[in-house]
């Protein structure tokens, strides 16, 4: 059994990891994984750099692009989590009782955003695309995910650019209503059905180089789990146990579309490159990155 430490951000996008763990796919592959939970993405990247973890279950792609830009070959994605209006992750919600029907109706609103320059940048870019100007038409402020529901409930903000499963919690609690989801695809990638690959499962470059065979076995187990996630609704039972999702919303909470790198189509690769380029343009990623160097197919 090869021991592998996997950095996990406790949210639904870590599902393949827990599926592979619970269904014994790792064990079959001769891998004994240890989950290392991080509540901050930069710490996951750092752990990959220092070799504290060999893999990440769900690492934000812009973070990955960033570190690869600075230190080429730090990590490679083996699967990507795509999101759009169907596979809802990012979305605008409005507080209960709001009359807004489209993004343009957010004129004059106080908006909260998921934290971090990437999220804030995306929210602003989307609103700009919807014809709103920051400062004049709306104000926006980033807030920790944990306070989103409360802030909308209390009416401190009128609307929010937020992520799943927080949005589902807010909606279920009656604190908010979904305004529009999949906004990155629609407004930034330019096609409603395009997948925005905002996160994915990754392996560290060092791990890939030193233990290619183990990496391959890990990827195989991972692929099996990804398939289950795509096809088997029962995997949702794992959400409450590991991934900060209450049992009530687990059956219905939207999940991203998880795709193994080898299954990515040409259009997907283009969309991914475009997604990262937007990050570069916003200054969230330091410089241009060729996304092909960031992914590895198994």
């Amino acid at each position, binding site marked *: 059994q090869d021991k592998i*430490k996997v*950095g*996990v*951000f*406790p949210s639904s996008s870590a599902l393949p990891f827990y599926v592979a763990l619970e269904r014994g796919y790792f064990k079959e592959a001769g891998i004994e994984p240890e*989950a*290392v*939970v*991080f*509540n*901050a993405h*930069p*710490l996951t990247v*750092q*752990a990959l750099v*220092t070799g*504290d*973890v060999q893999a990440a279950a769900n690492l934000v792609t812009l973070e990955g692009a960033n570190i690869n830009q600075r230190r080429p070959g730090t990590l490679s994605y083996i699967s990507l989590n795509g999101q759009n209006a169907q596979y809802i992750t990012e979305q605008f919600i409005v507080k209960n009782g709001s009359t807004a029907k489209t993004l343009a109706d957010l004129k004059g609103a106080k908006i909260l955003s998921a934290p971090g320059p990437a999220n804030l940048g995306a929210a602003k870019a989307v609103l700009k695309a919807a014809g709103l100007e920051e400062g004049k038409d709306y104000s926006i402020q980033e807030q920790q*995910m*944990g*306070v989103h*529901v*409360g802030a909308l*409930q*209390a009416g401190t903000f009128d609307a929010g650019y937020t992520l799943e*499963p*927080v949005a589902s*919690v*807010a909606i279920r*609690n009656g*604190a908010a209503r979904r305004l529009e989801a999949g906004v990155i695809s629609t407004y930034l990638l330019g096609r409603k059905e395009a997948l925005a690959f905002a996160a994915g499962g990754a392996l560290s470059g060092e791990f890939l180089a030193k233990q290619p065979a183990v990496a391959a076995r890990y990827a195989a187990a991972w692929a099996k789990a990804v398939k289950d996630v795509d096809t088997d609704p029962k995997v949702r039972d794992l959400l409450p146990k590991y991934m*900060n*999702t*209450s049992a009530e919303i687990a059956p219905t909470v939207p999940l991203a579309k998880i795709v193994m790198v080898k299954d990515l189509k040409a259009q997907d690769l283009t969309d991914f490159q475009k997604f990262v380029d937007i990050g570069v343009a916003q200054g969230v990623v330091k410089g241009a990155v060729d996304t092909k160097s960031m992914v590895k197919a198994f």
Partner: protein
Amino acid sequence: MTKPFTERLRVLTPAIGVLVLVGIWSIAHTLKIADPVLLPSPGETFRELWQGLAGGTLAHDAWTTVLRTLYSFAIALSIGVPLGIVLGASDRIYRSIEFVIDFFRSTPASVVFPLFLVLFGTGEKTKIAVAAFGAALVILFNVAYGVMNARKQRLLAARVMGASPLQVMVDVTVWESLPQTFVGIRSGISLALVIVIVAEMFIGSTDGLGHRVVNAQMVFEMPTMYAAIFTAGLLGYVLNLLFIVMERRFVHWSGR
């Protein structure tokens, strides 16, 4: 006449604090100063607390946090007290490294997490190390002050009796700084608890009160969250209480 009764009542004094806190909380809840969804009633919270402690996982999370806190506090104590005494004894040396102490005292623990992750890896060690570091600084700072403000006459008395500088330290300086050391100790144990919880929240963890708070917040289980917070505060008080009792025992002479 009424003395024994008042005496008996005195044991209950700390309970007044609890009552005040819960009272304000109840009022805030009844007046709906905050949305009831955001701030649950004390009743709900205590039900949650009781269930969590009796059968649930709260007891386990609390225990994990306590263990981490005690570990880091023990380390902090064994570094902070001796170092504080040594540094406090020499004004020159203290002034020369004051910068480092004040620097790190003024830097949030969450900011130094990355540094400690590099040094101590991703396991338990980092959480304990950061908390120990923070608490040690506070203890050191207080002890050093206690030493610097020690009554000079008593140090001289020991020296004149033939005590070596080391013996003066052990026999007099330590005692003279004891009241201040207890301030440091109590600041330190609270800080250790705070940092452990913050570490559990932000470095990520699979147990502990910080983990519980973050999770409850994510799924918007406010009673669970407040039960965890209340447990944290309660632990802080109990840990402090230990040292309050010790202090009353040992520092009978302060101010005399």
